[in-house]
């Protein structure tokens, strides 16, 4: 295998697939990026066995040649190292040359790297799935779905199914839900065209990786679903993830519909206040803040016997219902406030020891938080 390629294109591709590289793995070959070169262009593959990313880079882009092929072939190149070398490359073109089936030479300007490679034949064969009826999304819209739900994904393995986001369809609506039992995020998406029934749970970690990939690759996103795999296709990139096995709990019943108290705040102002008050929360401990809701103002406070206390008040834009006091984890609250977009937020309470929800004008997004028991 021998070719010359525009360095920014190659580097971007390697950077994209490197998100799937394994760091800890029983299969050392998965620390490599697989490069396959044929007449049409280069295929890059990386996988950690939960997710796989594959990217195709064509020889010609808009009739302009970007890859100059001297000899076809395949190689499994140490992924991290290749990525680092390319990041530091200081030439417009780089040349890749494989020899003796176990060394890869990377040349640019005055640099000459030789990296030891594993046998490409050891690289596992990873099938990419294709469905006849993919769901189509604008990638930016899907980025939002991830951002607004992934915060409530559980990081604890005690109930593995909760470490993912549940995506299910009902008529022409898509429900995206996550919960770690202490908070819940729900985003409903209206679809223009009806889709077949789906009900899957995508690992939260995979979605975080996908989110990063979508940040630099925007456009039309296709979602292909098979029995235990989901595949996202954007441009020439395929991002495939295993799905979580099991039944996601039914949560629709758990989101309250009637509220005894509703407060409207300026979202940024509220974030600022909570951020300041949370300064006194102890690392790793429950960062419990109290909301004392009076007629004219709301007092937000944190009392940590070992550190000290802080009190700050904030005036809601409007308020309706009976006054109360409630305590909850400030991290949950901040996470929820920060992923919303609108200027105003409405906090809707049902009771001192019952869940409350955070909403904006965008009624399709619900953030729910369970309080702590305070007296």
């Amino acid at each position, binding site marked *: 295998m021998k070719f010359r390629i525009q360095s920014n294109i190659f580097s971007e591709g390697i950077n994209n697939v490197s998100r799937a590289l394994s760091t800890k793995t029983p299969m050392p070959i998965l620390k490599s990026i697989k490069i396959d070169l044929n007449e049409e262009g280069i295929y890059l593959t990386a996988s950690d066995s939960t997710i796989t990313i594959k990217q195709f880079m064509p020889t010609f882009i808009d009739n302009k040649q970007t890859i100059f092929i001297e000899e076809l072939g395949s190689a499994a190149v140490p992924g991290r190292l290749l990525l680092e070398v390319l990041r530091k490359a200081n030439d417009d073109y780089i040349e890749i040359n494989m020899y003796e089936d176990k060394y890869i030479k990377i040349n640019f300007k005055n640099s000459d790297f030789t990296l030891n490679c594993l046998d490409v034949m050891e690289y596992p064969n990873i099938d990419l799935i294709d469905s006849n009826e993919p769901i189509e999304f604008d990638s930016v819209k899907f980025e939002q779905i991830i951002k607004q739900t992934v915060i409530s994904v559980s990081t*604890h393995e*005690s109930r593995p199914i909760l470490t993912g986001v549940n995506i299910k369809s009902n008529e022409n609506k898509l429900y995206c839900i996550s*919960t770690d*039992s*202490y*908070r*819940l995020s729900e985003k409903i998406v209206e679809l223009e065209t009806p889709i077949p029934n789906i009900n899957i749970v995508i690992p939260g970690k995979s979605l975080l990786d996908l989110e990063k990939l979508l940040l630099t690759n925007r456009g039309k996103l296709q979602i292909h679903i098979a029995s235990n795999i989901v595949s996202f296709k954007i441009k020439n990139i395929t991002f495939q993830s295993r799905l979580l096995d099991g039944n996601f*709990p039914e*949560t629709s019943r*758990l989101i309250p519909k009637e509220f005894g108290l509703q407060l409207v705040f300026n979202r940024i102002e509220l974030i600022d206040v909570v951020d300041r008050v949370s300064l006194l929360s102890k690392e790793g401990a*429950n960062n*419990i803040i109290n909301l*004392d809701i009076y007629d004219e103002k709301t007092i937000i406070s944190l009392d940590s016997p070992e550190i000290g206390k802080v009190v700050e008040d904030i005036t809601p834009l409007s308020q309706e219902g009976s006054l*109360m*006091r409630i*305590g909850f*984890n400030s991290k949950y609250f901040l996470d929820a406030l920060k992923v919303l977009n609108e200027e105003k937020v409405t906090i809707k309470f049902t*009771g*001192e*020891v*019952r*869940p409350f929800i955070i909403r904006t004008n965008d009624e399709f997004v619900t953030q*729910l938080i*369970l*309080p*702590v*028991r*305070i*007296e």
Partner: protein
Amino acid sequence: MKNNLNMKKKGRIIFHIDMNAFFISCELISKPSLINKAIAISGNNAKFNKGVIVTASYEAREYGVKAAMPVFQARKLCPHLLIIPSNMNLYRECSQKFKNFLKEYTSLIEIASIDEAYLDVTELCKNIHPLALAKEIQQKLLNIYQLPTSIGIAANKFLAKMASDMKKPLGITVLRNKELKEKLWPLKINEMYGIGKKTAPKLIDNDILTIGDIVKNPEKAKKILGNQFNHFYLNALGYGNNIVDPNKNDSYQSIGNSTTFQELITTETVAYKKLKELTQIVVSRLIKHSYLIKTISIQIKYADYKSHTKSYTLNYHTQDISIIYNNVIDLFDELWNKNLIRLLGVNTSNIIEKRDNIEQLNLFTYENQVNNENIIKLMNDINRKFGENTIKRGYKLKK
């Protein structure tokens, strides 16, 4: 003029009081006929011959009877050995008497374990010589409570602990900082407080044979002790912690229980049953002290005496037996390598008091817990109106 600040700061006088063969001493109180006999306490109440030795009297120790030894082996070494089943309640009761007695002298007491305590007697010794005070405490404990002790006197806790170990039973040892070279440094490395069974052989392999070798060969010792090195190095030089913390009183870092089996465990079913018993003991102690825990760990010791542990930290505090037991079983399933099991242990840590726990409500279960919602609402309303802590629950008041 030179202002020597260090001269002003006077050193502290710390006692370490260690009860000699404590469990045996407790038994002898009610069974005086056994005094001066070779006796041992066995861990297994049900079958004397199958348990292991928990501790042995000095007379029995002369025959080579040691803790953790199977009973049958101990009997071989010492055929006239008397075996008494252990009675933890009695020992706890005696330990409490011991603590209460010490509290008459000073409130600066740190309870280190069931049978030892540190005392800061700096103030007391303004009126009485430390040796005289130690003698008095030792005599009274022996005469009134029949509890023999050995006492170490030094400038910090580590040295006091090392000193109390130097003369047993009924010893009083003063370890002065200027005597470290002669008295402390020649001691074998495995006698250094804090150096465990696993670390000692590694140090010995690297020619760190005595406590003094840590000082003489710091580079080598550092390699083995890692980030703990400083702690041991400073202790060996006499710069130990001299703060006696009464708040450590009775508060536990961890609560656990383990059992050694004479008949090695081969099957999952038996192991589960034993783990359940151990969990029940641990949880009953948590409930008794109103403690909640967050970290659960188990220990398995195999026939070759190699010990393995594994732990799991929940994201909340609990004392719920089913949650704890399920995690114990999960840990066991992950840890067990199917070899024969000699010992099983269940341990819990990351302890807080129940009244300090903030209960995070759970989406899937909160509806079962809303029963006293009205009480909470009422209490919050009263406190908001009339000031904090106008009303609170009875269990939040300190005894």
